[in-house]
């Protein structure tokens, strides 16, 4: 059952918690505590990442089954169990989470100076919740991790955030909570119908289409907020703008993926009829998201807000891809989620680099950075290109596949997606031009230092991945090949069933 020979996924999930526990008990002067907390957090997250690489090497790409499965009975009389496992859809998200956390801790090394201990604990707890969510194979556990993410995120934004942090933290929490609670009801129904909360067993349920519609809406309430889809995306720009840099990175890199992952994990396999029924609605919302938020992004004066809106647009491509329900679209959507996790995370880091030096996110505050910080300009350009989806960068394969998939589903949807790509090039290049090129608008900018060694280290893995994913996407696509194929087959089989019965 377990290819690693030991409970790898539990270890990945709870190791950060152990690190957090150690940090909790560091004693001494504030500076010592801060420094120890940083190092402990970094080492914990690095070890976790190192362990997670076992998944990369030992994952069996030929099967769509769950692997590295662990199962312990927890509340047997309710059919509730501790059940972990990954398949092709979730495995790379686990790696993405474990990769981004050490990056975030490095990025906050100097930026966070107050309450360092609590900050690091919050990040490690967050890692536990994220990894746990992608590994959970039990609906109640899934919900616990899904919702548990809110606690550290609320505190990260609320304590270490910008001026309107309280408003943003509340908005994030309440939006997500409201959606999730409706999802909880849907999950309770599934749990009750199946008599067990184990996801693989729930997959065997054949639900009545009328029930499916309600379940779909309940899941949609949660995942649409999380993705976020238009029109429930408004918490995202606020949360991004107010969050500290590392918070934005995790938010864009991992938390937004939870919605897409939820669609793939629950809505598609469990509710085939409802998925088919609601696909046009999702397409419409996705196209609106892509086009509308791209236009909104063009008008932004705040760098973080611009990238936040670009995230909404990119995630619109993802939902579009998921609901094409064909191989290209689904693969593209998953790939796009991964690449967006890397690229937009990196873009927020780029903003963070400037913010740490100048303490402003206003685009007009900058200009001519290329002459002062040439290496930084290079790095920023790479990620800008990644966001535009230039061939050869991480953004391209995902968007391309989604548009190919969407073309098969509905050419107009594909047109909307393509329009988004064009607009994406527009707002990203416009941002880049205003910040990096043009003349040096202010004297004080001349004193800026280029990237420090720590920042190089922070960016290095992301640069590597952006290029790798762009140049040789197969090494990533191969992970979810089998799972996507199984998902498509499953969906088609489910759709064929009533038609056969009707004949």
């Amino acid at each position, binding site marked *: 059952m377990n290819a690693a020979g030991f409970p790898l996924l539990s270890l990945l999930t709870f190791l950060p918690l152990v690190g957090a526990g150690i940090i909790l008990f560091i004693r001494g002067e504030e500076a010592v505590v801060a420094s120890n907390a940083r190092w402990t957090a970094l080492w914990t997250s690095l070890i976790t990442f190192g362990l997670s690489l076992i998944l990369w090497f030992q994952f069996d790409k030929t099967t769509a089954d769950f692997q590295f499965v662990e199962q312990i009975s927890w509340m047997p*009389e309710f059919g509730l169990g501790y059940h972990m496992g990954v398949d092709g859809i979730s495995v790379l998200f686990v790696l993405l989470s474990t990769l981004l956390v050490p990056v975030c801790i490095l990025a906050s090394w100097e930026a966070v100076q107050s309450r360092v201990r609590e900050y690091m604990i919050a990040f490690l707890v967050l890692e536990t919740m994220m990894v746990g969510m992608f590994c959970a194979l039990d609906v109640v556990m899934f919900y616990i991790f899904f919702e548990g993410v809110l606690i550290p995120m609320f505190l990260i934004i609320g*304590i270490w955030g910008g001026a309107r942090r309280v408003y943003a933290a509340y908005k994030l929490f309440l939006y997500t909570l409201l959606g999730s609670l409706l999802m909880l009801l849907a999950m*309770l129904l599934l749990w009750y119908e199946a008599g067990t909360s184990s996801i693989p067993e729930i997959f065997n349920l054949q639900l009545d289409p009328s029930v499916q519609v309600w379940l779909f809406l309940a899941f949609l309430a949660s995942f649409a907020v999380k993705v976020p889809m238009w029109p429930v995306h408004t918490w995202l720009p606020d949360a991004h703008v107010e969050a500290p840099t590392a918070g934005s990175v995790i938010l864009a890199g991992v938390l937004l993926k939870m919605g897409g992952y939820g669609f793939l994990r629950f809505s598609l396999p469990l509710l085939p009829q409802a998925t088919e029924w609601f696909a046009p609605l999702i397409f419409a919302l996705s196209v609106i998201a892509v086009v509308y938020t791209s236009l909104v992004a063009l008008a932004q004066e705040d760098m973080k807000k611009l990238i936040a809106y670009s995230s909404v647009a990119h995630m619109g491509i993802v939902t579009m891809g998921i609901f094409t329900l064909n191989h290209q679209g689904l693969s593209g959507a998953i790939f796009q989620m991964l690449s967006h996790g890397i690229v937009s995370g990196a873009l927020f880091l780029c903003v963070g680099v400037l913010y740490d030096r100048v303490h402003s996110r206003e685009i007009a505050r900058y200009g001519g950075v290329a002459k002062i910080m040439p290496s930084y300009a290079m790095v920023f350009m790479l990620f800008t290109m990644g966001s535009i989806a230039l061939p050869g960068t991480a953004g391209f394969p995902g968007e391309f596949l989604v548009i190919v998939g969407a073309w098969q589903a509905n050419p107009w949807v594909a047109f909307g997606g393509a329009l988004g790509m064009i607009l994406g090039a527009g707002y990203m290049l416009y941002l880049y031009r205003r910040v990096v090129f043009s003349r040096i608008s202010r004297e004080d900018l001349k004193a800026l230092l280029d990237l420090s060694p720590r920042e190089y280290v922070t960016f290095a893995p992301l640069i590597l991945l952006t290029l790798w994913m762009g140049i040789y996407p197969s090494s990533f696509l191969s992970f979810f090949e089998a799972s996507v194929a199984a998902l498509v087959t499953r969906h088609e089989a489910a759709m064929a069933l009533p038609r056969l019965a009707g004949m």
Partner: protein
Amino acid sequence: MNWTLILPELVLAVAGLVILAIAVLPKRDTDFAASMATLGALLLAGVLVVAQPDGEAFLGQYVSDAFTKFMKLLVLAGAALGLLLAMDWNRKEGLARFEFAVLLLLSTVGMMVMVSANDLIALYLGLELLSLSLYVIAAFNRDSERSAEAGLKYFVLGALASGLLLYGSSLVYGFSGSTNFDGIANAITSSETAPFGLVIGLVFVLAALAFKISAVPFHMWTPDVYEGAPTPVTAFFATAPKVAAIALLTRVVAGPFAELAVQWQQVLLIASLGSMILGALAAIGQRNIKRLMAYSSIGHVGYALIGLAVGSELGVRGLLLYMAIYLFTNVGAFAVLVAMRRKGRALEGVDDLAGLGKSDPAMALAMTVFMLSMAGIPPLAGFFGKLYVFLAAVQGGYWTLAVVGVLSSAVSAYYYLRIIKVMYFDAGEALDPRPNSLSIVLAGTGLFTVFFFLFPAPFLAAAQAAVAALVG
């Protein structure tokens, strides 16, 4: 006559009388010794409850089974924790008198009688013993106008509730010919043939019990009494008596009136919906944290009543679990309220918690845990309480309850978050150092709330046994 069944109650009652008799003699302060003796008596009673055999006593007036054991242990725990919260407070406020411990003991006897009551007379006896003690405790700070007002208000409304209960009981007796729960159950063969007067009597009894658990629309006294009473007394009000009253309500509807489920389900459904909605909305604007907790407790009663309103075994189990978790979480939260004191003066404003995250990180963390648990955020204990009642609602197809329940929990999350926000995001002065007794309560309840998910099995098993005893 199997009088050994009431051994725990006897121990408590005798302990109360002995403490009363001895403590008046010496000149110096006896409150500490009285409190310790009370704690000892509660502990002893707890041991006796666990060791108690199942059975009936006093011609079926009194029962002991897994259900009463579960509830009595909760009540005893609530009373002991309430006393721990009060000891330091009373000393600082100049209220350190041994009568407090004695009253608390007597009210505990009342609650235990309520839990074990299997007869309308025993029910009334227990309820009155509890209520009379509570009226006095509410006004315990007799030099404070607000405390006296709280006591009086509670007395007037409590007396009204008692009147309702007696009137309902007399109707039930008149139409069923028995005051014994088993006798009433035998008299009701089906809901169609049940005499109308019996249904009226049932509604009166339900209304009286709704007063005691402060369910909408009989909740009006709650915020005022909670605000006026001394904080540790409020903590006690919000926990043990509520658990006892819920136990009684459960016994009444599941025992004698089981056949009339259609009737009482409607009543409880409306009470549950109303309590959840009111608890969520009315707390938002509160600036006094005790009032806020009052509305929060109304909301929690609403969630707990979901378990009863759906009328299934799963629901009752959820209810029991909910009350257990509610008790410990609430005691923890009130421990923080009791500790709110600056330069020797007790504070009650939500804003007075400002800056706690910096000045007392451990307490702020504990309060965060309690607030998030009450909001039902996993993996904290409160989530599991909600999980089981919602599961019962979904299972029974009560979608209105389930949907209103989740929506009002989302709304109530707002004011729980506000407390966290005030503690961490706002700046403020440090509070006085907290006494050790509170630290112990905080640590214990905090650890329970955080780590409940690791060991839910014994609680679930106990709740399951309790339900089986009640229904079977």
